[in-house]
């Protein structure tokens, strides 16, 4: 899966490249508007990660250019501009999703996967992880071919873990993924533990292996090995 990352901040760019490559993507980079414009005209991407504030132009114009070309690429806007109007403008112009800086890399991963899944397979795709099969479109989870009944939050949690196999997910990232942006550091994250405990129990009852690892004081990880 090929991704174009448009980001002018070098330090953030390099970290994002690293994280995306770890996630199994092929990443190309544009540091400014001109480079980005050239690349989207020349190449095809599965998804474009678009920073709105570029030194030589507005990211929204790149979005317009992509849409004008009927590009099949998904667009995920990443911006420090938390203005809701920016978000609305971005989504109105046809962006698939919007992330406000700073964001969790694991959240970026999950959103990216969701976009690509929708775009490439029109939703007709399934995720396979060891003895687990998940059909996101139907919100169906199968363990060894057997349906697993999960609550909404447990399902969201499982999907989030599956979007980031092998990655350490911090408590903050999980909490914000489950409760939206509305949860913050002052809240207790006990509920994550409760949901995780229930999820593990249900998986074990169906005979799935325990591949959700707890990293004390840090978070959780879907262990690939």
């Amino acid at each position: 899966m090929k991704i174009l990352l448009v980001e002018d901040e070098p330090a953030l760019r390099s970290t994002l490249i690293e994280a995306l490559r770890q996630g199994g993507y092929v990443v190309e980079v544009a540091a400014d508007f001109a480079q980005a414009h050239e690349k989207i005209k020349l190449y095809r991407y599965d998804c474009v990660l678009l920073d709105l504030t570029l030194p030589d132009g507005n990211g929204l114009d790149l979005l317009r250019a992509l849409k004008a070309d009927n590009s099949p690429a998904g667009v995920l806007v990443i911006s420090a501009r938390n203005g809701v109007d920016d978000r609305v403008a971005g989504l109105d112009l046809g962006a698939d999703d919007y992330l406000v800086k700073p964001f969790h890399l694991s959240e970026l991963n999950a959103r990216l996967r969701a976009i690509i899944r929708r775009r490439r397979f029109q939703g007709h795709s399934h995720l396979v992880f060891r003895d687990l099969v998940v059909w996101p479109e139907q919100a169906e989870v199968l363990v060894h071919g057997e349906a697993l009944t999960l609550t909404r939050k447990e399902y969201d949690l499982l999907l989030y873990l599956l979007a980031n196999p092998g990655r350490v997910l911090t408590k903050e990232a999980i909490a914000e993924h489950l409760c939206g942006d509305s949860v913050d550091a002052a809240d207790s994250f006990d509920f994550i533990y409760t949901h995780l405990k229930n999820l593990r129990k249900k998986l074990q009852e169906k005979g799935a292996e325990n591949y959700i690892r707890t990293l004390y004081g840090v978070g959780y990880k879907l262990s690939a090995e």
Partner: protein
Amino acid sequence: MKLLAVTNRYYVLLSAALFVVGSLVLYLSVDYAVRNEVGEQLQNHRLELEARVASGRPLPEPVYRDQYSFSTRPRPLGFSDTLLLDPTEGSMVPHQELTFRVVRAGQRPAWVTLRKSLVEVDELLMAVAGSMLLVLVLLLGGILLLHRYLSRRLWAPFQHTLAVLRGYDLQQHQPLALPDTKIEEFAELNQVLTHFSRRLVADYESLREFTANAAHEAQTPLAIMQAQLEQLLQLPTVTDDATAAPLLADLYAATRRLSRLHQALGLLSRIDNGQYAAAQPLDLAELLREKAEQLAPLLEARDLALALHLAASPPRALHPGLADSLVHNLLHNAIRHNVPGGDIALQLTAKYLEISNPGPVVVGDPARFFERFRKHNAASESPGLGLSIVQHICAYYGFGLRYSFEPAGARHTLRVSFGPATGGEAR
């Protein structure tokens, strides 16, 4: 006390003093004038009598003995005062008398006494005091009326200035608009005030810009920090290290906190900036249900029961972001300051949105809860911006915001009234 009342009081005091002095002077001068005139008349009368005697005619026989009499026995000469009884009035009337000696040819000399009545003291006093009092009353009444008229007329610009000042709101970023007046003092006052408000607005403006810029500029380094910390956490050498991993996780959490703080400050300054002009009809009940659903895990974790009473209310023209923030902060505040196993009652009607929850008694002025960085518990990890944001959003839309505490059951209630604000305001 009103300036005019104070001025009037001095006027009255001064008038009273003037009245006493004026009456005295008037009395003395009238008395002197009467005495002088009477003395002159007596002298003229004497000259007449002396001329008559000198021409050889006899002294006239006295008709009114109290006015003219003579005797051959010697009397003290010159002017003197005496009191005579006025039989008709039955009162003692002061008289001036002049006694002189007349030498008659061929007869023994005679001592003639002439008398004329002076004005009675009490009558004179009454006349003087009466007229003075009349003048005084007219003067004072005139002054009071004039002042009342002036206070309406001349002080009008001052009252206007006062009204403008009272209604002044720095949040609107407008300097005072005070009209020119012809009266120098007021014009000067208005000038000073206008200048003052300009500076205030400029200072406020620069502070606001500073906050907005600081909040915005901090997001990029924060984004770098957060991303790199998250990448660090992926390193097996770090996650397997029992000391390094929690340190990094704490750092990560702190970074997150910092960026939330900046986002909240940015939001506040954007509200102040009026950057949320765009509004669209929004179903608050729907939004509340959505948010409640989103926060369900937090509610569960604290064992809180949320009761929604959402009456059908007309869609309100709100900016979706602000509406979201308003609802979010209200709910979050109720969750955070709740007691374990407590409840949250949320009521939406066409007129207001009310949220109440039990919680520990909060000491201090309720109005201060809405200040920035105001925390119930200083050690709390929350920056204490939630209610400040709620207040700013309410102010932005002209909603009333009222906090009340009910000791029975220790319930805190926040009510957002959609109509114009009424009493017990948070601001």
